[in-house]
């Protein structure tokens, strides 16, 4: 049931974004919104709180994204809140990114970093990862403080991990 719902939302969102010629922007913003939703407990509980009226929750989305995100993204996020399926946001966003990437013959590369990367770093990183994997990539960078330092990149089933967190875990396992 959940997979069917996710596929239905993705299909609809992709069509709407395509009709507005904003697929790349929308999938990127939905991806970032999903990561924020995952990492921010307050945001997650506010948008999932069934005791809050739907329009109030939709207002939160609009206030959060208004002026910073494409209007289509705001409306799609509000749609998930309005239908009571905001919990599906991470799955929907990931599937939307995958769908948009596959339309362009790209593979999704999710990179987690402790700090925000500059555009130049993202470009060099995308190039390096493409070179390393032999694939054309749609790079998605997630700022994750748990990484502590360094980067971890996931391309399909391949994981390239050079994070301080992993090194510390390795040291910890030796205790």
């Amino acid at each position, binding site marked *: 049931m959940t997979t069917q719902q996710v596929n239905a939302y993705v299909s609809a969102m992709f069509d709407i974004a395509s009709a507005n010629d904003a697929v790349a922007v929308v999938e990127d913003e939905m991806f970032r919104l999903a990561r924020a939703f995952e990492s921010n407990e307050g945001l997650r509980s506010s948008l999932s709180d069934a005791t809050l009226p739907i329009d109030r929750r939709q207002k939160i989305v609009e206030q959060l994204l208004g002026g910073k995100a494409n209007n289509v993204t705001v409306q799609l996020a509000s749609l998930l809140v309005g239908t009571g399926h905001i919990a599906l946001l991470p799955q929907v966003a990931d599937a939307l990114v995958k769908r948009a990437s596959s339309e362009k013959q790209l593979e999704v590369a999710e990179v987690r*970093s*402790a*700090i925000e*990367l500059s555009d130049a*770093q993202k470009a*060099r*990183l995308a*190039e*390096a*990862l493409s*070179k*390393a994997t*032999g694939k054309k990539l749609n790079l998605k960078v997630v700022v994750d403080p748990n990484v*502590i*330092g*360094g*980067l971890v*990149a996931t391309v399909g089933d391949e994981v*390239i991990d*050079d994070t*301080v967190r992993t090194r*510390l875990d390795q*040291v*910890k396992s030796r*205790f």
Partner: protein
Amino acid sequence: MNLSVILIAAEDPTQSHHWLFPEIGEIIYGGLASIVIFTALYKFGWPAAAKALAARTAKIQKELDDSAAARQQADADAVNIRKALGDVAGERTRLLADADAQAAAILSEGRARITAEVAELEARAATETQAARSRIGDELRAEIARLSAAATTDTVRAALDDRTQQELVDGFIAKVGASR
């Protein structure tokens, strides 16, 4: 003076007969009557008297026999009672001996069981002590590792300034780019 002289001297000539001696006829009739009476007594009274004597003798004999039988029975009863007393004493002795034996067996069994239980408890306590020691050691090691890891993480996080972070990112890009 003898008695006859006295009797003769006292005889009164006015009297028809002597004051002491009866008339001859009285003697004769009296004697005959006595004979008749004694004969009748002998003929009719003696058998009844003899029978009564015999019955009394038989009764006395029976009583004597009964007494003898009762005494014999009493002796037999006394023997039985003595025997029974002897049996009771024997049974008491046997029961006491059995009780002593059972008590000794229970005591021995109890000692053996307690000894085994004590040994088992000691073994279990030793095992549990060893396990607890090992567990505490493991927990201590894990806690030290956790604290060390936390301290290390905090130290490393504090040491990672922006420049170092940038170097790590650039190092990753360079390493990945050079991997093929």
